[in-house]
């Protein structure tokens, strides 16, 4: 009898023990085998240095477009609300524009700027406020999506995201992504709801909701991947009804049919990303910062219309601290590589960029000569410098 009670006691002790949460989980979509690694080299085409004492520099985002047959670099700093235009071929500074000069934009802390065309630029601010501005930054239209799109059981709210693109136009529709409003760490339901809405800009109404996150994002109830909800998307160049989505920890790209809502996946794995570190689902700002610094992620997807290829930018893992200074490393400067996919999304290879302290993986654009990077000029504020690289295919 005594042994029986001891046994019962032992069983109850064991069953009461909390399962130790896993610290790492290997996640893929498990649908296909991945390609091998094809290393690609890259070459510096040229460095452009533009002297100007009046420019602040420190751009958060650069884009390249054409105006009157001139190739123009649009370089923005949303902290200072400044956009500088440079002539890429002449290597000259053309003008500086105050982004928030329109009274409607005063005191709006803008988070995103998205170029649709030379005279059509979207600005995105908190509370789902979207402004359409012309080349002179005059507001020509505006919407308040926090009023137009209410968060409910079927849909999360809408708000801008840094370093990504929250919206795109397709015909008369604006496609805009949803956003976990407050509790990023615990909002499991967010990942079970559609991640985007189609919005009719003329009727001012939501037409439908579409796009579902891969199931692995909700597999682990105890832990999550920081900033999982941030992803990059891009309309397919060959089929305007197809949307390509690059999730931060998916070795595949999602292909979403904008007409039917069907989703499929194509492999696009980096040789430098395998496992993704998860963290407990509770608010801990330092753990979040550390995850941003140390974790590798799939960052952004870009199309190169001059070479007809897609680039998937891959930030690699790095140590939390710089061993020389013992200070934290920068989340903006990590070792990185770029996966190249052809127009049919076939993997062509991956190229490592060694000098990752000179430029950031967060701020890359495409110009006629190749990939263009803005250079950190911490030691010389009187010049703005860009590097143009070509990946050898």
């Amino acid at each position: 009898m005594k042994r029986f009670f001891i046994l019962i006691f032992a069983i109850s002790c064991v069953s009461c023990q909390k399962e130790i949460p896993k610290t790492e989980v290997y996640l893929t979509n498990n649908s296909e085998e991945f390609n091998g690694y094809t290393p690609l080299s890259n070459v510096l085409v040229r460095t452009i240095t533009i002297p100007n004492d009046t420019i602040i520099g420190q751009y958060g985002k650069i884009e390249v477009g054409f105006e009157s047959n001139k190739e123009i670099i649009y370089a923005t700093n949303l902290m200072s609300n400044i956009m500088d235009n440079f002539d890429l071929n002449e290597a000259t500074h053309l003008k500086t524009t105050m982004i928030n000069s329109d009274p409607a934009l005063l005191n709006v802390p803008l988070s995103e700027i998205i170029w649709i065309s030379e005279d059509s630029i979207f600005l995105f601010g908190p509370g789902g406020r979207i402004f359409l501005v012309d080349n002179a930054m005059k507001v020509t239209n505006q919407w308040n999506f926090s009023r137009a799109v209410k968060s409910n059981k079927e849909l999360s709210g809408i708000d801008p995201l840094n370093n990504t693109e929250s919206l795109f136009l397709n015909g008369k529709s604006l496609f805009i992504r949803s956003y976990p409003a407050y509790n990023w760490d615990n909002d499991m339901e967010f990942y079970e709801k559609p991640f985007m809405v189609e919005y009719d800009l003329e009727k001012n109404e939501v037409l439908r909701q579409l796009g579902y996150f891969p199931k692995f994002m909700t597999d682990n109830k105890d832990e999550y991947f920081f900033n999982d909800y941030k992803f990059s998307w891009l309309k397919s160049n060959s089929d305007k009804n197809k949307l390509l989505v690059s999730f931060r920890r998916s070795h595949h790209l999602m292909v979403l049919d904008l007409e039917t809502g069907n989703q499929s996946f194509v492999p696009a794995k980096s040789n430098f990303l395998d496992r993704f570190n998860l963290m407990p689902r509770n608010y801990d700002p330092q753990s979040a910062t550390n995850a941003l610094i140390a974790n590798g992620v799939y960052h952004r997807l870009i199309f190169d219309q001059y070479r007809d290829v897609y680039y998937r930018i891959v930030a690699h893992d790095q140590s939390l601290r710089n061993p020389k200074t013992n200070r934290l490393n920068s989340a903006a400067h990590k070792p990185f590589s770029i996966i190249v996919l052809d127009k049919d999304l076939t993997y062509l290879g991956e190229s490592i960029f060694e000098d990752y302290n000179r430029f950031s993986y967060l701020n890359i654009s495409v110009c006629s000569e190749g990939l263009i990077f803005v250079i950190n000029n911490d030691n010389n504020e009187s010049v703005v410098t860009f590097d143009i690289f070509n990946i050898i295919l």
Partner: protein
Amino acid sequence: MLIFNRFRVLAFLLLVMLSCSEKVEKNEYRYSEDFFSYLNEVHGIKYEENSLYYLLDLQSCDPCIDTNLKMLSELDRISNLNIILLAKPRFAKWDNELKKIFETQNILEDVNGEAYLFELGLGKPLILYSIKEGEVFNYLSVSDFEIEKAKHFISNYAKY
């Protein structure tokens, strides 16, 4: 005898009251070492015992800045409070509050936001209180919705 007993009771009550008021619950701050390195390397100062440090990022969310600056600008001069302002403000709308704070309190500026190169547990504004050498004794991560709690935290340790 009665008077003596009353005196003993009063003394006992006084002792109890004193011991209660001295008892402050320690709230362990995991990043003391990095915080002291930050003060030393970025601001060139050593921490001081019985000092309050209030770290506020001027490029965090607007409502957070609104709420914190309003509260700080309404405080009287507190000699052991050091307000550490991170980055530069994006808008001029806070000029009045900042002017008042600069005129009233001890200010340390970190315009490049170097605090983020240290593990300090920054997310929301942060108040640290150091009671003795080599240790942050108590801290508070300031939520927008609990600004009164921050005010109370400061008043607990403030020296005027």
